[in-house]
């Protein structure tokens, strides 16, 4: 059974290639070829490794091998206080740093039963949505790059640069924002931020049309992605797949909508869903999610109240009372959840981080079985993951 093959011991050393054995009169027996994609391979953007069993160009089995970037977040968190954890949680999914830190602050605030000032909540939404756009643009570009269209990647970086510059003005960081604090935010927005932000919304909305023209409307792109890697909704839920991938499979599950946190219940937006759950739908959902995020950002601009950004009476030491909670947030790639167990100390007793990419990648073998080697790219590129988020 190929799927039971251990990833550690690979048959076929370097140079063995395909071994052709003449089986009998006029017959040709071929052997399955093992191809190791990664850990350093252009299409795995990071250090994911997929061990493929190939029958010609058809994938007979696929085993993801992860852990090359495991940094023991759970263990490190047990040796840090909550402010330090915010800085640490920035770093596993480096494309949606703000979403990560938001989850942990919400968990601590729920345990401590803190009232977060209104203004802080709205600003959190604003930055979180910008961060989502930032993240989605990256995947919008890299998916094209993996299919051979290199231009969208550079356009994506052009847009990302503008957003990063905007967020840097507020948070001081281009990727690792460390902007949240338990109870609120580190500091308020700098003057002129809202104007720049609303200008940028218009700009990005206009530029999104470029991606539509280059990819979504392109016949070659459709040929490569339509009905490739079809993921049924039931399978997705069973694997714990979330975010754009689950939505592309027709399940409109988005915790911003179903269990609103912050003030997501006070803004209007849609949860885009796909009809078929193939690679094209996943890409389309990602694209639509950017549009929805831009809508939310505009509404936050209008609704942002004045006031403090951190409660006037913050406890000196952040020590959540004994207890446990699980807080889930809709991060860029799906559900980022923190299961926090506190024993009243200034460090958590146990902090389990549930990351979307881990579950997305665990589903890869299901999608890859039976597709062609070139489709591996169309599938891997549309199963959006960040390796740091997989390995933690």
């Amino acid at each position: 059974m190929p799927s039971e093959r251990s990833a550690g011991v690979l048959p076929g050393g370097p140079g063995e290639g395909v071994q052709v054995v003449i089986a009998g009169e006029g017959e040709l027996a071929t052997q399955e070829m093992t191809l190791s994609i990664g850990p350093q391979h252009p299409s795995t953007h990071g250090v994911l490794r997929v061990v493929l069993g190939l029958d010609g160009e058809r994938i007979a089995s696929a085993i993801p091998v992860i852990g090359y970037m495991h940094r023991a977040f759970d263990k490190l968190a047990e040796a840090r206080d909550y402010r330090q954890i915010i800085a640490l949680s920035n770093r596993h999914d480096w494309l949606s740093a703000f979403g990560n830190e938001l989850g942990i602050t919400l968990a601590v605030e729920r345990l401590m039963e803190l009232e977060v000032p209104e203004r802080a909540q709205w600003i959190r939404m604003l930055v979180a949505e910008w961060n989502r756009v930032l993240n989605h643009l990256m995947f919008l570009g890299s998916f094209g790059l993996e299919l051979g269209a290199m231009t969208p990647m550079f356009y994506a970086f052009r847009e990302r640069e503008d957003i990063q510059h905007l967020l840097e003005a507020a948070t001081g960081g281009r990727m690792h924002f460390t902007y949240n604090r338990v109870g609120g935010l580190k500091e308020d927005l700098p003057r002129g931020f809202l104007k720049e932000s609303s200008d940028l919304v218009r700009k990005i909305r206009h530029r999104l049309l470029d991606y539509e023209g280059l990819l979504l409307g392109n016949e070659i792109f459709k040929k490569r992605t339509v009905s490739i890697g079809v993921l049924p909704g039931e399978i997705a839920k069973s694997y714990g797949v979330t975010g754009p991938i689950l939505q592309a499979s027709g399940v409109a599950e988005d915790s911003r909508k179903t269990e609103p946190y912050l003030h997501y219940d006070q803004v209007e937006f849609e949860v885009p869903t796909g009809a078929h759950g193939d690679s094209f739908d996943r890409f389309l959902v990602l694209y639509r999610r950017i549009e929805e995020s831009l809508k939310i950002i505009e509404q936050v601009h209008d609704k942002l109240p004045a006031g403090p950004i951190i409660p006037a009476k913050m406890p000196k030491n952040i020590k959540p009372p004994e207890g446990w909670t699980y807080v889930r947030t809709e991060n860029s790639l799906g559900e980022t959840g923190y299961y926090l167990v506190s024993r009243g100390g200034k460090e958590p007793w146990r902090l389990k981080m549930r990351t979307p990419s881990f579950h997305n990648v665990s589903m890869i073998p299901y999608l890859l079985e039976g597709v062609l080697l070139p489709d591996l790219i169309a599938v891997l590129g549309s199963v959006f993951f960040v390796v740091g988020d997989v390995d933690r």
Partner: protein
Amino acid sequence: MIFYELFDNFWAVLGLKLGVLFIFFLTAPLLIGYTEHKVLAHMQARLGPMEAGKFHGWAQLVADGVKFIQKEDLIPRAADKWVFSLAPAVVIVPVVVVFLVIPFGPALVNSDVAASCGAGGCGWWGENLDVGIFFVLAVTSVSVIGMLMAGWASANKFSLIGAIRGAAQLIAYELPLVLAAAAVAMQAGTLSLVGIAEGQQSMWYVVPQFAGFAIFITASLAELSRPPFDMPIADSEIIFGHMTEYSGIRFGLFLLSEYAGIVSLSAVATVLYLGGWHGFIIPGIPGPLWTLAKIGALGFFVIWLRATYPRLREDQLQKLSWKYLIPIALLNILLTGIFKVVF
């Protein structure tokens, strides 16, 4: 005059022609490569190379060449050493040879030089072969042997997949290429490239043979493994196809052959469809310049496609060839034949 007498000497003429062609072979691909750097960059809202050579990085490819020469030439331990080291040469030689028969300009008539030439006449070409078009199509397909050699000898699975893809692609696209060219030969009534170019005095063949032109360009792209048909080297799937294990100057030769391939196939397409050295609208520009301008324009188009399109899948590529291009090319031949007979 001693100068014209020189043209009587077979070896002197041969040496001169080879020298000129060699210089062209070395500079034209570099120009195309530099254009690709710059055009791709600007299409992607970047600047491209800006440092080497100070002015807009004009010397970038020269610097790259020097870098390739300096780098260590690695041969994997498991590789088939002879085949591995020979492969780049097998890839590059056919591309060079193609330039021998490309006519860049008109025949030299009413001059002393012309008088001293032999039966084939002389002009802006290396050799006026009677079966020029055959020669070009035959020679260009030799490259794929080099590709297969590289893929097999590298002892790398990615290389092997790339090489096999390349071979499959060549088999599929040689046919439409030949069929499209055959229609042109029928139209012109000659197999000589010079003859074909001369035949386009009044009308470029792209007008009556537009379908053939489209097929020829598509098939050339596939044969060159240029996007959107670059599956043999598809960098995001199989690293760099047959070139994965190469480094140093051998890798440089592969890259050179890719750009030289763009030049040579653009040149062939220019001669077959775009009227060769014949100009239009603006009179007084010498023929060779027209040829170079047309080659440049086609090269730009090839780069433009690379900037815009994703890559097709191998089986879709085959389908495109066998189900669409070949039937259309056959139909094109049929129509051309009827056209020739009727008029």
